[in-house]
């Protein structure tokens, strides 16, 4: 019997895409809330991220995305509304995003392993990564963030308040 050759399309990774979309939402709102209550995040934004600057995390080529905009000294969560931005951090595929967003690896390791790449001003991306590290300490328990951060911070009372705010107000309500 003659073999028939047909174009082949791979399916979708529904579970990983769903998880990454969920984490994009949590991380976006977490960053927004941290930029309101965490003094270290506020300082980073004040010193490095210009007003009106847009940031996009995006799974290449057209996967889940997370948009942010610097406004009034804070980061505003823009959901999936941005197509392009001043700074774009691309994940090369959904598996890389899944590994990072499920805290299997931190940003330095992902960068070292070429799993992410950056379009735009690298100095702003360095500041954003520091913000991301701080938010990870609020979102994840110590047993996880100690594994992915090069120098885990000490979590004093103020930081515990930030964590509570992010979980009870920032993520559910979005302020």
């Amino acid at each position, binding site marked *: 019997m003659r073999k028939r050759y047909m174009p082949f399309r791979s399916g979708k990774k529904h579970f990983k895409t769903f998880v990454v979309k969920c984490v994009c939402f949590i991380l976006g709102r977490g960053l927004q809330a941290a930029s309101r209550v965490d003094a270290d995040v506020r300082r980073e934004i004040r*010193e*490095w991220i210009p007003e009106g600057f847009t940031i996009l995390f995006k799974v290449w080529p057209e996967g889940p995305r997370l948009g942010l905009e610097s406004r009034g000294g804070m980061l505003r969560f823009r959901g999936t509304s941005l197509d392009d931005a001043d700074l*774009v951090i691309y994940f090369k595929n959904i598996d890389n995003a899944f590994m990072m967003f499920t805290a299997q690896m931190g*940003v*330095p*390791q992902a*960068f*070292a*392993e*070429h*799993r992410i*790449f*950056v*379009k*735009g*001003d*690298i*100095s*702003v*991306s*360095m*500041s954003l*990564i520091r913000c991301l590290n701080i938010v990870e300490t609020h979102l994840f328990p110590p047993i996880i963030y100690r594994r992915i*951060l*090069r*120098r885990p911070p000490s979590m004093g009372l103020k930081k515990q308040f930030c964590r509570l705010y992010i979980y009870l107000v920032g993520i559910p309500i979005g302020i």
Partner: protein
Amino acid sequence: MLPSYYEFYNPVKILSGNKAVENIPFELDQLGARRPIIITDRGVAGAGLVRIIEKAFADTTLSIGAVYDETPPDSSIETVNTIAGIYRKTGCDSIIAVGGGSAIDTAKGVGIVITENSEDLMKFMGAEMLKKTMKPFIVVPTTSGTGSECTLVAVISNPAKNVKMAFTSYKLLPNVAVLDPRMTLTCPPKITAATGMDALTHAMEGFYCNQKNPMSDAYAGAAIELVRDNLVEAVKNGKNENARLAMANAACMAGTAFSNSMVGMVHGLGHAAGAVCHIPHGIAMSIFLPFGLEYNSVKAADPIGRLLVHWGGFDEYMKTPVAQRPARTVELVRAMKDTLYGLCGLPRTLSEAGVPREKLPEIAKTATGDGSLLLNPEELEYDDALRVLNEAYA
């Protein structure tokens, strides 16, 4: 130990040794090019090095379309666009960069403008933003340090917007690198020393920073040994062609290593010191290298300890207890700095380099925005950077 994942890429053809420059026309023909533009600077042209390249085209059917010899010490967008205009006007089809880091980075910028047909380089800033294959590109380094002939990086300043635009793309790697001892013979002792320490820093940081991999380790280790055996001789006796060629190879191999393993805080601090106080890059590398090794000697104790076999030699490595190897590596790097200071006055500290102490906080702040810190084994925050700068000042 192997990293859980790594990438390595180096497609650059290396021509190394006696009369290597004379093979450039053949290599251009192989690349389908007939009419290159030469991009260089006044110092290189004044030393008669461009004449060597021009003579290589005698008795061939290829011709040089133009020679641009006004590249400034800092590559800038204006220069890049000016050269791109000359390239188009004179019907060139390829690029030869002759010089140090500035001429090579400028040439890479010209390659982007010509290939992408856009004068707005800002939109290509960052990593992997270039999709089109560049025009044929040959590099002839005249210093042995930057390793730009084998790196995927270009830094070009945009004075109007006061930013240094960094581009990293595999498309920026030249097709051919030409290491001809004649091209570095005229390099003065102090620049030879500074660029040699730059090459050593590329190799050492490439050997212990977080993107290291077995391939880059092989290049870095070999580069360190070539620097160990030849830098002092190249500084003492600049006319020694063997030492010059060895240093050119060391820089090229170190460039290949760090292009695939990237660098860390020594470069972060060096870039910042250069931006704030205009301290030459090689001098900054020489000053900061032992501090970078020391700072990382807990998190990266194993690779820094293993550096000793390349930098100190096998006997030194074997007689030093494992726990003391990182500290011994630092000691020997400091000994090299002292030797170079004695030979040509290469500054060992920031104060010797003329950096005002009140600039240290600004340097520390600028350093925290440098991408190379991301791959440093140990976290480096503002306070840490300031502490290291104060130590490097005295």
